[in-house]
């Protein structure tokens, strides 16, 4: 006879776990961003380099990522209502928006490289590629996870609680970009 008692759920465990992961990721990006801020404050002339970036493309990308955060939140809301088609629809939108972000980023990188702005062209570019590269890897990882959840949602909603967990990660990646945008593209 099994003892019955108040047991934490997989959903709660997953949520606590992902917040610990986010805490450590804040330290990773925080270390990288802090280093950038200090290096930039120490070196004149980075604004001139940054002027080569396309604020327009980055604004589009910011819009893309913000929207993907909304669709991700709506995917979880659909799960809470038991709406399987809604879950799949919103997860798919999130994935496509994430891929769009990566596509635009790839286009940006290509145009910089064609102009001769490569990672070793100078400190600003080193930081630019490091920060956006690290971020893009996180977007890619998130898109892959979302795709796995999308496939699983096709079979049913029993593991749908994982959408909240993946969503928390995805929103964190969005928040990182919310700061990278002004740091790299807008600041003087």
């Amino acid at each position, binding site marked *: 006879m099994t003892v019955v008692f108040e047991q934490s759920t997989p959903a709660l465990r997953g949520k606590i776990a992902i917040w610990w992961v986010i805490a450590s990721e804040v330290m990773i990006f925080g270390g990288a961003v802090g280093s950038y801020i200090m290096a930039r404050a120490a070196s004149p002339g980075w604004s001139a380099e940054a002027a080569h970036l396309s604020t327009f493309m980055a604004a589009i990308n910011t819009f893309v990522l913000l929207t993907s955060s909304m669709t991700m939140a709506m995917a979880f809301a659909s799960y809470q*209502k038991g709406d399987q088609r809604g879950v799949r629809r919103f997860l798919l939108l999130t994935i496509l928006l994430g891929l769009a972000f990566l596509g635009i980023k790839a286009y940006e990188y290509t145009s910089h490289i064609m102009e001769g702005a490569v990672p070793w062209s100078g400190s600003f570019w080193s930081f630019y590629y490091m920060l956006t590269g690290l971020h893009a890897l996180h977007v890619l990882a998130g898109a892959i996870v979302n795709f796995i959840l999308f496939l699983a949602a096709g079979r049913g909603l029993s593991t749908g609680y994982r959408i909240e967990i993946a969503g928390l990660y995805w929103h964190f990646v969005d928040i990182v970009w919310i700061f990278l945008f002004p740091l790299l593209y807008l600041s003087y």
Partner: protein
Amino acid sequence: MTAERVHPNYVAIWVWLVVLMVAGVLATRLPLGKSAVNSLIFAIAAVKAALVALNYMHLRSENWLIYALAIVPVLLVVAMTLVLFPDIVFHH
């Protein structure tokens, strides 16, 4: 698990986020001093981040442990950067 939770209006939040993003871009065109513009765009970024965190990440309705996990690392990283400022920025 997942009771029917009253959640924020995600679309309304999205509208605010987009508005703030446009405001941030426009802020760089304003005829203000360098530090004023920088302060403005980062304040806007902080508000956007807070909107995402409180609403999309449901921080509004989470317990104190999750709040701590969200806030403590940020404070730690800010503190670390501040401690390093004299060394890295002014001694280069």
